[in-house]
């Protein structure tokens, strides 16, 4: 789960991580009000979407062709300007390097007090899977994409793995601060900040945290000028972070993926037209692969897990059919504990109840597979049985009318 910048900053404030004053608004009038309340001659109107690269992005008309505004982060010097920028942005798609070609509709902007920047730094944290620990990353190359820095100038990135039980140690915070060339009061502020950042990363079940840029102002203040936070979905599912769960922005998520998650199904949208239903993530991924290799295009990834009974199959069908692009369905189930006859009956019942009209190819393997295949054959429905995965992929591509 991702948080918007304004939400990440709310969490930062709770942990004492310094941020500029700011307010999130939904209308141009509110933007003007917010500017006035800030009492800062310079302010920034920032588009709030779950994608980076907003500053260099482009706001388009809804046709995605005509440019409305260059840049999704705009400096303003008056309430009227704040209102003007907000009017240009709110309700329109912002396309950035990370948003995908359709961009994201901007529903809120964050009006933040401007500051006089002296230095731009980078501070982030991420899980290092191999080490099994989170790692703090810092660099003097603030404002740049960290992956670019990692590629062009890896020595510019300072790393500190820290022990989750012990927390970041003082010597580690000092090492990073010295490496960033900080001294005096800025050093002290950064030290406090990095302690808070690592504590927050663990306590809030983060998978990703980025403050880019972290700035030192001309007045010597150390501020988090941007904030990006990714939260472990598992922690949300386990109800460990109710305050963060309340911040979830469903409009930024794929509606079918969101609905699937509410049923306990793992669904990821793809671009093709063959709907897939599989039990097991690895088998589901390789089902997409084999369809592609046979010349077809999977419409989705869907792992129904161990619960492929009639109800789950019905829900899965509804999700797959909610996508108008889908021309045929491929069901690939390896029944272990789940018996193939039970699955087959579930599929037949679900097809009848949901009134599926497009061709369905089913590949069943495992316990009671022969009984399962008989059930499908005798159902009177337009269900084609496949002998194995490769056969299933070929048959469903034919059925979708995509023969090469």
């Amino acid at each position, binding site marked *: 789960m991702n948080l918007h910048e304004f939400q990440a900053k709310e969490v930062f404030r709770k942990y004492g991580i310094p941020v500029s004053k700011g307010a999130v608004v939904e209308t141009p009038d509110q933007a003007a009000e917010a500017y006035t309340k800030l009492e800062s001659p310079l302010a920034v109107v920032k588009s709030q979407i779950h994608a980076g690269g907003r500053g260099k992005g482009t706001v388009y008309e809804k046709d995605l062709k005509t440019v409305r505004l260059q840049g999704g982060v705009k400096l303003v010097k008056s309430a009227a300007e704040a209102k003007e920028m907000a009017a240009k942005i709110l309700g329109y798609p912002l396309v950035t390097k990370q948003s995908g070609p359709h961009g994201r509709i901007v529903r809120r902007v964050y009006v933040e007090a401007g500051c006089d920047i002296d230095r731009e730094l980078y501070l982030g944290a991420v899980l290092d899977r191999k080490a099994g620990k989170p790692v703090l990353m810092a660099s003097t190359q603030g404002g740049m994409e960290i992956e670019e820095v990692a590629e062009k100038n890896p020595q510019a990135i300072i790393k500190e793995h820290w022990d989750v039980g012990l927390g970041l140690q003082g010597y580690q915070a000092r090492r990073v601060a010295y490496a960033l060339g900080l001294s005096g009061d800025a050093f002290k502020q950064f030290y406090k900040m990095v302690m808070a950042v690592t504590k927050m990363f663990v306590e809030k079940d983060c998978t990703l945290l980025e403050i880019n840029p972290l700035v030192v102002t001309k007045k010597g203040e150390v501020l988090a000028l941007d904030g990006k936070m990714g939260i472990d979905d598992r922690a949300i599912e386990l109800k460990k972070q109710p305050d963060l769960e309340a911040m979830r922005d469903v409009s930024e998520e794929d509606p079918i993926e969101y609905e699937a998650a509410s049923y306990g199904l793992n669904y990821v949208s793809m671009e093709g037209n063959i709907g897939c239903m599989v039990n097991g993530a690895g088998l589901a991924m390789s089902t997409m*692969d084999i369809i592609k290799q046979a010349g077809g295009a999977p419409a989705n990834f869907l792992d129904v897990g161990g619960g492929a009974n009639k109800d789950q199959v019905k829900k899965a069908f509804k999700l797959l059919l909610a996508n108008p692009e889908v021309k045929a369905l491929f069901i690939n189930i390896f029944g272990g504990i789940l018996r193939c006859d039970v699955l087959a009956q579930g599929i037949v019942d679900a097809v009848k109840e949901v009134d599926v009209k497009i061709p369905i190819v089913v590949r069943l393997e495992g316990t009671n597979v022969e009984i399962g295949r008989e059930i499908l054959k005798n159902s009177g429905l337009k269900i084609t049985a496949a002998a194995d995965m490769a056969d299933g992929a070929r048959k469903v591509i034919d059925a979708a009318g995509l023969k090469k």
Partner: protein
Amino acid sequence: MSIMVDKNTRIVVQGLTGEAGTVHGNGMLEYGSAVVAGVTPGKGGTQWESKKGAKVPVFNTVEQAVNATGCNASVIFVPGAAAADGVMEAAAAGIPLAVCITEGISIMDEVRLRAFLKEKKTRMIGPNCPGVITPGQTKLGIMPGYIHKPGDIGVVSRSGTLTYEAVWQLSALGYGQSSAVGIGGDPVQGTDFIDVLTLFNQDPGTRAVVMIGEIGGTMEEEAAAWIKANMKKPVVAFIGGQTAPPGKRMGHAGAIIQGGKGTAAAKYDALRAAGVACVQSPADMGKIMKAVLEGKAA
């Protein structure tokens, strides 16, 4: 030959009295596994009865189970919020092998668990895995026993049902399995590919290995480097998620391409460079192993 478990392994099932524990406790007993104890806090002193009438004593703590029954391996069916604690309890009780089936443990809990286990002698398999099986002898987990055949092909995988697919293909071609180990789909695991490949390499009962990986992380790349330097037996590998879009978690918590890293293509490149026979289609895993063993070009 077995690499981790055999017919003498004495199993305690943590969460035996729950839904999953009961279904799979029955499954393990039916396969011939020696399930000698169950642990459910609050149900100590009771007995769990299998479908066929076998009675298994239930204890409040793993320590009590060890003292009473001498169990030396645990299978954990505890729900996500408490599963890491369950593994820690098994490790603290000195159980040498803990197989954590549970899917849905938070990443921070897995990080804490990794640190805890560093100081213990317990090997954890998983989390989020189907378990480990030595065909013909014992299974610790949820895999369907009947698809397996005793033999000399080792199988190690991050997946569940895709592993069954591989085993099915191998068995159908007459190639039985020495052991099949599911290391699980999570980003922070107890046992990685290198751990299992090392055991297969040393096992006189294993002649070749099927390795099933997927997108996310760098475990396959690290395994490739290890294989190049150490592996004395043929390895056949399939990587799932060749068509997965970047940035999306594909079911498994660990199956995600991030910052351009963890792609199937990169894993295949590394494995190929290490002399591993790479399989593009999941339908061909058995076929390619056959070709490799019969000396044909991979």
